[in-house]
């Protein structure tokens, strides 16, 4: 790990000022990803601003009937919170599908949004990676890319190519739930729709999110609609527990009298951000759950998917997982 200085502000204003006045400083909360990346020399902040003393750990109801998840509430406390389990079981299920119990006890909700990709080439400083070292190339494109993206990739220009995936399970559920991220920074407070929070690699694969320098996530707001009756999170991986997703699917449905009245489908493990296509979800509305063939929906969600060799299997895997997840959410088969 590189040397760095350390600060532990006790209020949000001071924390934001710390980043504004120290170039190269970073916030640290749980530290589970940042310290790992510092040990690998992928991240090397010259100052760490420990935000754990800020009062951002509460989980409380919003006036709109939703739930506000404090940025510093841990993943474990969130997944096991009674309001999350009863009103947003999809989120609880997704969080508990990720990491290990120890890591979930440390990792925070805010930090989960900033997890960096688990691409081997991003981690290995001896190989090129446009995300870690802009312009150096992409080791994964013609390398070992079994875990890599099949949708929304950047692969035309060698200097901006990136086929990394976003590693979070929690974020896949948050995308399906239309969560809203609350941030504060030098320019004041603002909110970011979850769909706009993470980005595709495009011409700037080194940027994972749309957050501005110096901004701090303070909370994640869940809207009132939580799909507590018809939902599922399916995660497919190389071992049954404690592994990142090859493909994951979060589904939330509203069903009235055997007909779908609202549908959300978000995919993980396939792109640089949780993958959604609202126009495809809309095709399910009005359909009878017992008579609908979900395969064309899966086809439409994977439209434009591209394999890079080792990861080409993900295209068919994702389609089948989507069909299975829709059936499971609709209670046409057991939740397991």
């Amino acid at each position, binding site marked *: 790990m590189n040397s760095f200085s350390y600060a532990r502000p006790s209020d949000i204003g001071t924390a934001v000022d710390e980043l504004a006045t120290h170039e190269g400083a970073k916030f640290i909360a749980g530290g589970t990803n940042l310290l790992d990346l510092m*040990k690998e020399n992928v991240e090397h902040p010259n100052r760490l601003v420990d935000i754990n003393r800020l009062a951002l750990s509460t989980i409380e109801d919003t006036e709109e009937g939703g739930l506000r998840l404090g940025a510093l509430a841990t993943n474990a406390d969130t997944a096991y919170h009674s309001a999350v389990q009863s009103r947003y079981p999809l989120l609880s299920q997704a969080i508990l599908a990720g990491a290990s*119990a*120890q*890591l979930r006890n440390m990792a925070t909700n805010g930090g989960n949004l900033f997890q960096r990709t688990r691409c081997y080439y991003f981690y290995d400083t001896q190989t090129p990676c446009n995300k870690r070292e802009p312009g150096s190339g992409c080791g994964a494109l013609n390398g070992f890319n079994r875990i890599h993206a099949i949708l929304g990739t950047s692969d035309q220009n060698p200097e901006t190519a990136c086929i990394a995936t976003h590693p979070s399970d929690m974020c896949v559920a948050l995308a399906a739930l239309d969560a809203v991220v609350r941030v504060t920074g030098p320019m004041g407070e603002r909110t970011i729709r979850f769909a706009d929070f993470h980005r595709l690699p495009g011409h700037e694969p080194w940027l994972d999110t749309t957050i501005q320098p110096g901004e701090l996530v303070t909370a994640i707001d869940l809207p009132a609609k939580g799909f507590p009756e018809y939902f599922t999170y399916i995660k497919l991986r190389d071992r049954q527990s404690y592994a990142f997703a090859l493909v994951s699917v979060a589904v939330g449905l509203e069903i009235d009298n055997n007909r779908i009245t609202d549908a959300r489908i978000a995919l993980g493990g396939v792109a640089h951000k949780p993958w959604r296509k609202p126009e495809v979800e809309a095709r399910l509305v009005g359909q009878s759950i017992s008579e609908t063939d979900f395969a064309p929906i899966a086809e439409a969600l994977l439209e434009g998917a591209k394999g890079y060799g080792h990861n080409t299997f993900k295209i068919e895997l994702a389609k089948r997982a989507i069909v299975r997840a829709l059936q499971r959410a609709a209670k046409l088969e057991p939740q397991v």
Partner: protein
Amino acid sequence: MQTTLSPETRADLAPSLPQKQAIKLTINGTVHHLELAPWTTLLDALREYLHLTGTKKGCDHGQCGACTVLVDGKRINSCLTLAVMKEDSDITTIEGLAAENGLHPLQTAFVEHDAYQCGYCTPGQICSAVGLMNEGQAKTIDDIRELMSGNLCRCGAYPHIVDAIREVMHIEPKS
């Protein structure tokens, strides 16, 4: 081949070496005053500065669980947190589990069930199992297996480890 950082970037990484700072850690009920650099992990503070070597360094990346300790009763990976971040916490390591009159029930169960071979992962396994019981979420053997997945055992003693934990939790063998 491109390596890590260009020289001009590297030069301003650390303008001056930050001073060590006074850090107070409460471990197994004892308050310790240390002078540590801020980048000292809790794991390194325990092993290198307090000589509490029961907590093991396996992968040092949060993947194996050998470094598991309890912070305010919750299990965490001590390799992925800085000592300075835990100044206000009560830390319990494997050395702090036994009472004066005998081993912790999980320690006894690990002995009785022969829940190890080389023993390197054992302190982490036991601290993790204590955390598991504190959490109160595991009701079945499958739950134990799932919620202990952050602790690897390269000898493959898993069946005996699960048996030891199950017995202390009063969960039936075929639940």
